[in-house]
């Protein structure tokens, strides 16, 4: 019986590679990605603004004042006064709570519903798949804004309903990408192996399939955040959003629209905030996509 030379006898001290968990690797990738970092910084600032807004009283934001009508921007009214003399700066800061919460909650609704349905469709296939995909296609066929308008009309104008409306319109894309992801993974061997040792279907979905199919979902979630904010703002702009005295950013722009010639500041600043917020989420989304996509790794 010939002896296999013991590997450790001949190989010198193996160079200790810093081992990182998968999560650690992703975090590291993100840290190196400038746009993702920029996005995170802006989001952090926005969160600060949000926290700051909690200290502003609703009354302060809605109180009208004839003296301050169309007040030009200065130290006390950095964004000026609107047609009812309200402080636009305070209104904008206060309004951050709407846009940020709508963005996040609506995207969350789309994600949870979409991923759930998409996983079922992808995993079970057959009739379940057909029904879910058909329903999703019908939902996707209706132009998003129009559907949102109709839903709001039915449910009435309020923050919750806006969240529901925007959330619902965002479901189809998650169904589609989750299903695609699940279909790819389902056929991988480690799933077969899990089933072979007797894991239940549901357990396989949640412990094997989803964690590995997560990256496109995460990336879509971040872009969905930005998109939700824009759709919500657009609906508010058209008059379907949060009811009027509440200073949602889209509503603010809509209000400022009529005075665009004389006081362009009224619509410019709130709109700028929308853009910056969405930009932050898109930057983060891009950074995540680069970090999570193994193909792009050098």
């Amino acid at each position, binding site marked *: 019986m010939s002896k296999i030379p013991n590997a450790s006898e001949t190989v010198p001290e193996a160079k200790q590679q810093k081992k990182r968990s998968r999560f650690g690797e992703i975090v590291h990738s993100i840290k190196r990605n400038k*746009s993702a970092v920029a996005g995170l910084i802006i989001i952090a600032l926005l969160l600060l603004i949000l926290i700051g807004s909690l200290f502003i009283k609703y009354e302060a934001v809605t109180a009208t004042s004839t003296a301050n009508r169309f007040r030009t921007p200065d130290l006390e009214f950095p964004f000026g006064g609107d047609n009812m003399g309200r402080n636009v700066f305070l209104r904008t800061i206060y309004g951050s709570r709407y846009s940020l919460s709508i963005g996040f909650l609506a995207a969350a609704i789309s994600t949870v519903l979409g991923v759930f349905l998409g996983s079922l469709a992808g995993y079970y296939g057959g009739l379940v798949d057909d029904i879910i995909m058909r329903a999703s296609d019908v939902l996707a066929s209706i*132009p998003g*804004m129009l559907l949102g308008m109709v839903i709001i009309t*039915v449910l009435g104008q309020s923050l919750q309903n806006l969240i529901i409306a925007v959330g619902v319109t965002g479901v189809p894309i998650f169904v589609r990408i989750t299903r695609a992801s699940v279909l790819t993974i389902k056929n991988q061997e480690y799933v077969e192996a899990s089933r072979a040792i007797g894991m239940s279907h549901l357990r396989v979905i949640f412990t094997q399939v989803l964690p590995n199919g997560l990256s496109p979902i995460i990336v879509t979630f971040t872009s969905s955040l930005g998109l939700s904010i824009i759709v919500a703002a657009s609906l508010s702009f058209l008059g379907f959003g949060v009811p009027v005295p509440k200073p949602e950013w889209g509503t603010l722009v809509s209000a400022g629209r009529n005075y665009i010639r004389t006081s362009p500041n009224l*619509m410019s600043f709130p709109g*700028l905030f929308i853009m*910056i917020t969405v930009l932050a989420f*898109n930057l983060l989304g*891009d950074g995540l996509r680069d970090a999570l996509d193994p193909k792009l790794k050098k």
Partner: protein
Amino acid sequence: MLRYVLKRILWLIPVIICVSFIVFALMDLAPGTIIDAMISEATTAEDIAALRAKYDLDKPLIYRYGKYMFRLAQGDLGLSDVSQTSVWDKYITRLPNTLLLSLAALVIGSAISIPMGINAARHAGKITDTATTTFTLIGMSMPSFWLALLLILLFSYYLGWVPAGGNKGFSAFILPAVCSGLLLMANSTRQTRSSMLEVLNSDYLRTARAKGVPEKVVIRKHALGNAWIPILTTIGSSLGVSLAGSAVIESVFAWPGVGRATVDAVLARDVTETCGMIIMSTIIYVLLQLIVDLMYAFVDPRIRAQYTNRKKKRRSAV
């Protein structure tokens, strides 16, 4: 191939049924009815009853829906609850305006986005690329109505070059077209860039170079020849997106398109008109997607193979 097209078109029918039901039911359930705007303090109880009877408000939802579907099956979109004008007429007269806008946006957007995207991909990682990516990211983050208002501010009020909107002549068309084009451009550039990037890293380019094919030809024929396929579909689908988002742009620029008309219909609680318009928009949206898919099949031999007769596919012996 034909079977596939037919199948997709036939699929429209259940879609229409579902969409119409959803919209109809939702609008119907909404608080307030069409007659609210017609009733005032002075209206007598009999008049109110007559109005209710006229709009079948005294009957259940199913009845109204049934009546609507019955007419729809005959191709009749009905009359607007408010103005009693034909929904079909209103839609059809305004559709060209929206299509015109979307097409213009497509042309403007693509003319810039495709070269820009290709350029960014070829210089990936360098300054050109970073600049392009930043630019498109900002473009994607802008709400359409804000961009529209900014453009109006700049070009209409400060510079006075073009009117702020309306539908009087070509000059009124410029700003909304440019606005839509810019928005479309952001997404198209990104997609072009990533398609091009993927192609630029592919092995068959290396094979082409190893054959001694001149670099210019490698890029033009081999790289672009493959990259333009996903680009084409992005363009096609962004046409659909701009169609959907037309509501906002048309509202800001007071452009007489179908988007704006739908918004007005919803606001007025005009169930028939809303339903009709949304159904029509949905049909167009679906047809557009079908055209895009067919285009894809037309230009990509791999996809084409999936749709052509299975009998023709030879079993390639190893």
